[in-house]
């Protein structure tokens, strides 16, 4: 009985895959190659050739099979902060961002160019790394330890 169920599930999956193939090709416009005839999804609640199995049963089997496959496919990519260990050297963008901020602090001036360069560098950093840099420059601006040379968004 199990083998029969699997065969029916495979047949069902094939027809679903064939339907998906035709749908995707529809975007490519008309093609000279005629696709093989596609079985129209029956409106009848039973499966052709297997009158003992209802469509609902087949769907349940397919769901079970797909659920068994899911864990291997659903693993999300690691977050950038988590992917990097504590012993890893800091990435170059982080070093450059710190250098840029340190130099501006030494000058006591914050130019528009500094802001724009910092923006570019921050874009390559993780949130944690960006906070590390912004946590230096922002309090310095707010405390007047560094003077902006322009009027406009400071960071």
């Amino acid at each position, binding site marked *: 009985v199990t083998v029969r169920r699997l065969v029916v599930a495979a047949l069902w999956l094939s027809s679903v895959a064939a339907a998906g193939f035709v749908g995707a090709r529809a975007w490519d416009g008309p093609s000279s190659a005629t696709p093989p005839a596609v079985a129209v999804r029956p409106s009848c609640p039973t499966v052709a050739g297997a009158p003992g199995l209802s469509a609902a049963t087949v769907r349940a089997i397919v769901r079970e099979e797909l659920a068994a496959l899911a864990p291997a496919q659903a693993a999300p990519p690691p977050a950038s902060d988590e992917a990097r260990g504590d012993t890893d050297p800091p990435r170059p963008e982080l070093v450059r961002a710190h250098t840029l901020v340190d130099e501006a602090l030494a000058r006591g001036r914050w130019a528009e160019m500094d802001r724009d360069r910092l923006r570019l560098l921050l*874009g390559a950093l993780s*949130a944690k790394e960006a*906070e590390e840099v912004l946590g230096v420059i*922002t309090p310095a*601006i*707010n405390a007047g330890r560094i003077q902006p040379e322009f*009027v406009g968004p*400071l960071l």
Partner: protein
Amino acid sequence: MNKILAATAGFALSLFALTTFAGEKRSAPVVVDYNWSFASGAAADARSSIDSKQYIGCSITSTNANTGVRCSASDAQARQATCYSYNPEVVKAVQAVGTDSWIMFQWDAYGYCTQVFIDNNSLNAPKVK
């Protein structure tokens, strides 16, 4: 004489009508308060201020690595302040900022935005070019 009276009455009526339907308004220039670590003001009022110093606003930045916000302001005396945040809730709040918004942001010792308050209200002046 009657014509003058009618015209005067008409003028008075139109003034009354204008006053009646004017609606409440407020003017909110930019304030930067270092003691309380906050800045506030209406974007449109800052825009239409006669000085060339005032502004207030927030930016959202999004990359593959992060999504964050930065708010900045300058008052009429060119006192500037800024804060940043990568808190998704703060990012969500900043998405509500419009050209007619009244904005207040508060920062901590690290410059982190501890609060962003966005008020989209009929009291606020609309932005003019």
